[in-house]
């Protein structure tokens, strides 16, 4: 029996970690002691199966999970997302076809789609000219003649409803480190827009203008400018008060700065060029549709690593929230989409809100967005709370991630890297769910954004993923 360690305790300074009753830590501090308090929650919310899975994984695995996760982290950090151009979905997006409509989130059938997604599907059908009226479009959507598939199954992502059809122009973002690509439509602005489920004539008209005029202008300007290194730009916008999901003001400004000198050189009527620039300027969120595919091709590089429990996809379709793990390729784990806890635009309230929707949570999956809240104190106004709350959100995310980003840094945290690469074990163990910033869509199609806030993903999706992971890998 060796009492050395106990003697060391007696001769040194007492430094406690307190778990449970907070007053024990407070008392120690009052007596001049040192204590850190752990806000303890039952692991996995007390779910016995999930606890057993956690214990089984920590007892031993068939693969070296830590090494697999380290490889996932290496790939995420090494990724170099770069905007290489704009193309038409049918030409560039793998598997895209005239009768295929891509949507946000995990797979969902027409009959289970929420209002905004249905509206966007109707709009997509009208836009493609597959039907002449909304009623016809709805009938067609329900007929089974249209195929639906998640954007994520086609290397793509889409904000809110995330609807992409074959003739839409899309951003092409290439991960220069690994050669994989990701695609996303162009952002349409605020108000009545397809991604919020609007399909009125003005919406379709704007989409046509974007395809016929805006996309060619941007594409030509980009050709003159050369490829855009998104990693550098995202790193920059975090220093300028954006967090990469809900605040995109700095990012949009940078894109305008980068493209404007080349746009004005294009051999097109001045009015066209001015309209394009004005459109970008009026839409703070224009940059989001560049951040999303950048994040997508970044985490895609880490997908499919045997034995890794890093989350490589989080996405919602307005009905369900789903995640995928690197080490369990092809499998979705889902739970009901949450109700966003947020603040509303004047005249709207929680009763108007659709459930959580969109692929934009790919930003959090890659270590920005809600995970970088501390970089964007201004956004606190959108989601309620104080700048301190924003910092706390980011600090909490370090507890469920495997790494700190080496490129994306937060000024307010002394340029600490953003929490990156979510480890599903940590999520289940601590009960700390990924912090997701998001806009709130009106539940009826076509009304648009009615607020913004933070949303809690369903805990069971993470537990189910962990249990499946343990089934495959624990010994």
């Amino acid at each position, binding site marked *: 029996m060796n009492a050395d360690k106990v003697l060391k305790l007696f001769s040194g300074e007492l430094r406690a970690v307190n778990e449970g009753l907070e007053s024990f830590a407070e008392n120690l501090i009052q007596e001049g002691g040192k204590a850190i308090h752990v806000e303890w929650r039952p692991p996995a919310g007390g779910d016995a199966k999930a606890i057993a899975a956690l214990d089984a994984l920590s007892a031993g695995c068939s693969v070296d999970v830590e090494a697999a996760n380290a490889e996932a982290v290496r790939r995420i950090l090494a990724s170099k997302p770069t905007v290489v151009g704009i193309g038409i979905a049918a030409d560039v997006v793998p598997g895209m076809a005239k009768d295929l409509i891509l949507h946000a989130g995990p797979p969902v059938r027409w009959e289970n789609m929420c209002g905004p997604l249905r509206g966007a599907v109707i709009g997509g059908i009208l836009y493609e000219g597959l039907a002449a009226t909304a009623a016809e479009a709805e009938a067609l959507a329900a007929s089974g003649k249209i195929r639906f598939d998640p954007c994520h199954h086609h290397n793509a992502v889409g904000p809110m409803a995330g609807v992409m059809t074959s003739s839409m122009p899309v951003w092409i973002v290439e991960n220069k480190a690994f050669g994989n690509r990701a695609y996303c439509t162009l952002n349409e602005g605020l108000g009545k827009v397809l991604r919020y489920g609007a399909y009125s004539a003005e919406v379709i008209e704007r989409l046509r203008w974007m395809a016929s005029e805006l996309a060619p202008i941007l594409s030509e300007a980009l050709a003159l400018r050369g490829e855009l290194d998104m990693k550098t730009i995202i790193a920059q916008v975090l220093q300028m008060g954006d967090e990469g999901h809900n605040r995109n003001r700095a990012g949009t400004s940078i894109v305008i700065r980068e493209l404007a000198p080349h746009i004005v050189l294009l051999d097109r009527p001045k009015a066209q060029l001015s309209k394009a620039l004005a459109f970008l300027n009026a839409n703070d969120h224009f940059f989001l549709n560049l951040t999303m595919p950048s994040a997508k091709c970044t985490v895609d590089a880490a997908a499919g690593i045997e034995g890794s429990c890093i989350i490589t996809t989080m996405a919602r379709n307005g009905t369900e929230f789903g995640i995928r793990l690197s080490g369990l390729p092809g499998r979705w784990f889902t739970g009901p989409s949450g109700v966003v806890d*947020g603040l509303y*635009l004047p005249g709207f309230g929680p009763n108007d809100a659709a459930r959580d929707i969109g692929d934009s949570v790919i930003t959090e999956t890659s270590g920005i967005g809600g995970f970088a809240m501390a970089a964007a104190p201004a956004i606190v106004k959108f989601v309620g709370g104080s700048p301190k709350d924003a910092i706390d959100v980011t600090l909490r995310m370090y507890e469920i991630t495997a790494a700190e980003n080496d490129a994306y840094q937060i000024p307010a945290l002394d340029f600490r890297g953003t929490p990156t690469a979510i480890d599903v074990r940590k999520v289940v163990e601590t009960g700390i769910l990924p912090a997701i910033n998001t806009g709130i869509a009106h539940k009826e199609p076509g009304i648009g954004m009615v*607020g913004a806030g933070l949303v809690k993903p369903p805990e069971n999706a993470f537990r189910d993923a962990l249990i499946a992971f343990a089934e495959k890998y624990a010994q």
Partner: protein
Amino acid sequence: MRPRIGFLVPPPDWSALIVGVYEKAISLLHADGALVSLVRGAEDMEARAIALDESWDIFAWKAKQAFEEAGYKRQAYVDFRLPGSSGVNQAPCITLRIGEGYGGAEPSHGAQGFSLALDDAEPWDTRDELRQGCRAALPADGGLAAAIAASLAMLKAFLAQTIPESSDGIGGGGSFGKAFTRLKERQDFPACLVGFGPGTTPAGDDWLAGFLAAAELGGPLNRLAGLQADIRQRLPSTGAAGRALLLGAIAGAPPAYLSRVRQACLRCAADGGSALSLAIEAALGHGASSGRDSLEGFQAGLESIQDFSPRD
């Protein structure tokens, strides 16, 4: 930075009760019925405020001791006086004093009698800023009208896209919001907003401060003089915080955060609104809902200029 003394701060000597010590301000209830505030720096200034600059932290800390240890009996005072009686150019001095009848233990940390000389304090007066700003904006392309039109568009877009922190405000759907809609129809609108709405500074006072700050860009119209007089008459029907704010506003000196918005408006056509967007964002963060309320007033003020065709 040197300490600054707002031009509406009553001249020495006076003594005022400390009624609140907050994160960014100490509120003093002056005998004239309006608050005088002690604040940290220029960004929190207003016409009836004194910015303490680097001495703020220590003074606020001592004031907090004095205020809280007096047991919320509000018997802690700040004296504002000129030491001695000799020179005319002497710097005034602020001193913490725990008043008579104080029952508790002597406050620790030496709060009693803690004194700060406001050496080389500068007078603070945003009216000059406005005059200079207007002059500078005039030759800019499109002139004042273009600047106002651009500002208005930007402000509108901002307010439509940001979410109020509370639906209980005067712009929300609650009781105050409904009452506000009715007040808009009244003959004496907007003067009837004095003292109306939630907040220690009633939201209606914030709205009026914003309205006046913007409307002044339209030049010295007689119409404004009428409104200013009307508001002055109604000052007794708001609280001490509202009075302080409105005294500045009717004198043409809105608080610093509104001045900043106003200055940015003047440059809006020239710089593409980059200064304005920052100023609006900062203003939205002011107080609980004060920022938003005053910006809504500001928007109405800009609209009123457009209605009346500006002077250029």
